């Protein structure tokens, strides 16, 4: 009789261990939310620089972003003079200016400027 008891206790322990393991394997699915590179909150209530400066110097700003953004990776954040933080990305510009499909093209066509942005970036003119 005693031997049987001991056997049962052993079986129970084995069962518990198996359960524990199965639970352990089951926890894989739910992952903690990725502690993603701290994205700069898109604050685009006004432009990166004052309008007048952007009229004459937007190409320098974009050139700087183009050269530095990829290499800075998660830290590719532009801080404006009034402390707003913007992701160095053409889509940051297009978040506002994309609403007017001809925003870039009307001037560039007039000035015969042919930047190669749209070789890769999808221009507002190409979006449906």
């Amino acid at each position, binding site marked *: 009789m005693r031997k049987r008891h001991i056997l049962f206790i052993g079986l129970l322990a084995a069962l518990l261990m198996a359960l524990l393991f199965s639970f*352990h394997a089951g*926890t894989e699915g739910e992952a903690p939310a*990725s502690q*993603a590179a701290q994205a700069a909150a898109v604050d685009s209530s006004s432009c990166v620089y004052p309008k007048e400066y952007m009229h004459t110097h937007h190409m320098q700003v974009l050139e700087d972003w183009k050269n530095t953004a990829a290499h800075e990776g998660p830290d590719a954040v532009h801080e404006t003079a009034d402390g707003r933080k913007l*992701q160095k990305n053409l889509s940051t510009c297009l978040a506002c200016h994309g609403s007017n499909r001809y925003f870039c093209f009307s001037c560039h066509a007039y000035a015969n400027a042919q930047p190669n942005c749209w070789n*890769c970036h999808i221009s507002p003119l190409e979006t449906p």
Partner: protein
Amino acid sequence: MMKNDRREFIRKAGMGLLAGMGAASGLLTGGGFERTTSAAWAAVPGEEGLRWGMLFDTRRCPEGCTLCIESCHHTHNVPDIASLEGKIEWMHKENGRELLGSLCASTAAVPALCNHCAEPSCARACPTGSIFRRTDGIVAIDYHRCVGCRSCMQSCPYGEVSFNWSDPRAALKNPTVEYPTRQRGVVEKCNFCSDRLVRGKKPSCVEACPEGAISFGNLNDPSSEIRRLLESSETLQRKPELGTRPSVFYII
């Protein structure tokens, strides 16, 4: 009698030899030459912090399913080019034995992508510095700077870099507006979804997998899900003997 003894001796000695060889091969390869040890993910002094890594549980990866690949290629505007030379792939499925070596028991197709090595040979080979390792462990390409020399393709031991022989726009049917395409004459490869991470999202393959077979997380964080899995299971890496320290792991 004499003849029988000799035969018996040879038989026994032969069996002993076979057993010895079996044990030796078991001890030598089974001892973990290719199998991942904690050294594969432990932070090297001076590079603590964030290091993104990915783990495929191939036991959960269904045969013939390509949802991860489709989702990856759609979100990143990877063109669908049929020709073998012109083919562009950020992610693909390959025979597990060919991918992971003889320790991989199954020959079923296993997903493969850029390994985002801690010691990337592609970054060493790039003459313009357009392929580089970011501070979060992602090996990224600056497409603006790439001159299309294909040194990275030659140096990558995993063959995970593709070259745009033709204009990829022509082969794109339904582009994703949020992500740029590439142009003719640059290389491209998986970016570990750095564009999605910056928005606090998980990589698109992880989200697309219906079986939850792909885990993604910080390899340097002992409490992350991927670290728990790495510590609790036997994992493999692709060609770990080369010392590139890949950040992609496989449970077979």
